[in-house]
């Protein structure tokens, strides 16, 4: 409990509280604009966090991450366009409600389900920290270099397997990200990897340069080269509080969906889409009226929103416990940890337990703040939907420059960011996923770092898997690969 109070005490400062407020409200607004997701906002904000206190930076980014999905439900329900990619399923039932003239009901249900999902995983996390905190301190002894190497490898395998229809592309882009991470001069042995004698490439590519390029500049180019959307005008009538009452009628769907979100968030490389897929399918299977799904079924909306909002808190678990980010946003947050000198990983339970509590309590505050803001200001936030896309693109481009230049005062960085942005633009045009590049960069670096650090203990190939954790993770990797191959073959046979 001491760590809990210390964590709470960490948050009791003006800069942190202001960061929570800006992050939450800003995240809501960002989520509500179709075309700007939390990834772009975090990519742009990332360089600014270098100048802020570590906890202030993290709660700011957490605020954006935790609240953007609430905001993303607004255009998904009102104009059938998801604000963030994870709100895609929300459009199925949410927009159907709007077409029936029940927009307020849809929004209210989405908010209450999101709030339930968010709080569910946060409280679970806080409870686990309180109950198992003392035992988790010994986790550091269980996890050696080889174990974390294997955890990162599992993350990579799961990431590729989760891209069900684009596995080849995900593997290719993961490999590309991995290769980008390798470029540069190896500090110990002065070996140049793929530098081709270019001096700029000796220190390697900066992670933020790649992230800003791939996420922010590419999206700016995508918006600029596209056309302005002309969303239909949505009318919002009625209160937004009754969703909580309706949520009570579907306790099983809400709990199971939040549970899926929590589990899928914890598993590296999986994330919101798989959680939504499972929770929506389960909700439909449980429903007495499955035919209503996609036509404004309240349980469909609850399943979608409760699961995706349970992910952010859960996604912090692999990042904090193993130092292995499970998806792009937590990978970006890792940069803040590095800057703050805090090494996420098993030792964090021993060295910074209060910090963990601070993050989870901050997430809880963010959820409360967001729901209060939404209940009273949805009508104003909904107006953000109508900001022209191409104008947004122009300003994302301006913000991207600040983000890239401020890291190392390097014009070369800006040029490379433009190059990565153009690559990301083509990927977006072709509907190829962007996340594997960033995770390839981060997980690839972790894998090589841990493999090199643990090389002293590796005499034979079996030493890679002869520890309890690494052995278990290796078996899980084999199972995932086997299941994925079997499923692919079955799907192909079915399609033939």
């Amino acid at each position, binding site marked *: 409990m001491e760590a809990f109070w210390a964590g709470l005490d960490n948050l009791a400062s003006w800069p942190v509280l202001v960061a929570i407020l800006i992050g939450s409200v800003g995240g809501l607004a960002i989520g509500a604009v179709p075309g700007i997701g939390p990834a772009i906002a975090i990519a742009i904000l990332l*360089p*600014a966090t270098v*100048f*802020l206190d570590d906890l202030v930076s993290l709660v700011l980014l957490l605020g954006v991450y935790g609240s953007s999905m609430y905001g993303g439900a607004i255009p998904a329900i009102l104009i059938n366009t998801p604000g963030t990619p994870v709100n895609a399923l929300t459009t*199925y039932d949410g927009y159907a409600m709007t077409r029936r003239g029940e927009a307020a009901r849809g929004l209210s249900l989405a908010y209450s389900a999101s709030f339930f999902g968010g709080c569910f995983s946060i409280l679970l996390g806080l409870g686990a920290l309180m109950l198992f905190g003392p035992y988790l301190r010994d986790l550091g002894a269980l996890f050696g270099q080889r174990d974390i190497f294997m955890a990162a490898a599992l993350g990579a395998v799961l990431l590729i397997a989760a891209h069900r*229809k684009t596995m*080849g*592309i995900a*593997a*290719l882009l993961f*490999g*590309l990200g*991995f*290769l980008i991470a*390798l470029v540069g001069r*190896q500090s110990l042995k002065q*070996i*140049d*990897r*793929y530098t*081709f004698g270019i001096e700029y490439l000796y220190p390697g590519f900066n992670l933020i340069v790649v992230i800003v390029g791939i996420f922010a500049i590419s999206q700016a*180019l995508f918006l*600029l080269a596209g056309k302005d959307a002309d969303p239909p005008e949505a009318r919002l009538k009625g209160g937004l509080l009754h969703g909580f009452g309706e949520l009570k009628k579907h306790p099983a769907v809400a709990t199971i969906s939040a549970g899926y979100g929590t589990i899928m968030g914890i598993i590296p490389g999986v994330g919101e*889409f798989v959680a*939504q*897929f499972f929770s929506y399918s389960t909700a*439909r299977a449980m429903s007495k009226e*499955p*035919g209503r799904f*996609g036509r404004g079924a309240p349980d469909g909306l609850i399943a979608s929103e409760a699961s995706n909002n349970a992910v952010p808190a859960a996604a912090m678990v692999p990042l904090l416990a193993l130092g292995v980010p499970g998806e792009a946003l937590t990978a970006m947050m890792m940069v803040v940890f590095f800057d703050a000198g805090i090494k996420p990983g098993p030792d964090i339970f021993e060295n910074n337990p209060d910090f963990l509590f601070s993050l989870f309590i901050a997430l809880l505050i963010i959820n409360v703040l967001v729901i209060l803001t939404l209940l009273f200001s949805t009508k104003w936030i909904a107006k953000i939907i109508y900001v022209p896309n*191409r*104008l947004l693109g*122009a*300003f994302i*481009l*301006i*913000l*991207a*420059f600040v983000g890239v*230049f*401020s890291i190392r005062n390097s*014009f070369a960085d*800006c*040029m490379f960011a*433009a190059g990565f*942005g153009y690559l990301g*633009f*083509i990927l977006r*045009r*072709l*509907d190829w996923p962007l996340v594997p590049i960033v995770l390839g960069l981060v997980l690839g670096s972790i*894998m*090589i770092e841990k*493999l*090199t650090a643990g*090389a002293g203990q590796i*005499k*034979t*190939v079996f*030493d890679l898997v002869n520890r309890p954790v690494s052995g278990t993770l290796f078996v899980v990797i084999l199972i995932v690969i086997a299941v994925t191959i079997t499923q692919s073959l079955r799907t192909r046979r079915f399609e033939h």
Partner: protein
Amino acid sequence: MKSRAVSPALKSATAVRPLRSSATGPGFASACPPDKKINVTDITDFRRGRGDLIFSLFMAGLALFFLLFFFTQTGWEDRKLPHNMARYWMDQFGVTAPEGRTARLGRILKQGWVAPLICLCVLVPAALWNLRGAWRAHAWRKRFKQSTAVTYELGQWLRALEYVAWFVAYTLLVPVLGYLVSTVLLGTLLPWRLGYRGVRWMGICLAVSFTIVLVFRTGLQIKTPVNIWLYDQLPQGMETFMQVWF
């Protein structure tokens, strides 16, 4: 034995009446129910578009390029490996008993070329596999007489280069005119080029550009280029003020 309950979805599917329309006449009847059931997998749906083959070719070429330079750009020339590798791997997997002193696997894994090799083991096969998928999609389009023209897609790619040029120009302009002036210029000229030309739009763009500068440069003191040509032309006091705040 307990009879298996029929699910409501199945009931509704079997209860669909044959479709008869005035266009097809009374002779035509379809028992197929209209497919209104939504599919959850739609959110992960993926179809290879036009331009996919070209980009897949480029990516495969890139992967092969890195493979080609693996031998000169990764420290492969300075590798330290046992003489008989086949025997070494057999020893490693316990197929044969090691004779004398054998090199630890860890000593090999530490070498600089290992990481690129692991990476290429993922990248190259994935690139070739993806190229195969792109080629098959292209062949499918041709077979079913669908358009395979890539002119539009390539046009879109080229179109985006204009905005890359705007970004590069902005980057080059900042050391000459300073962050404030360059941002205001890009923040108004680019929207003008995009068609937001009224006084109202220009006012909004000006205000947003100025706010960005105030938040990031004046407020957060984020680093922007120093030694700005325009600021050097200003009187000493003003030059310092501009350099500190804008």
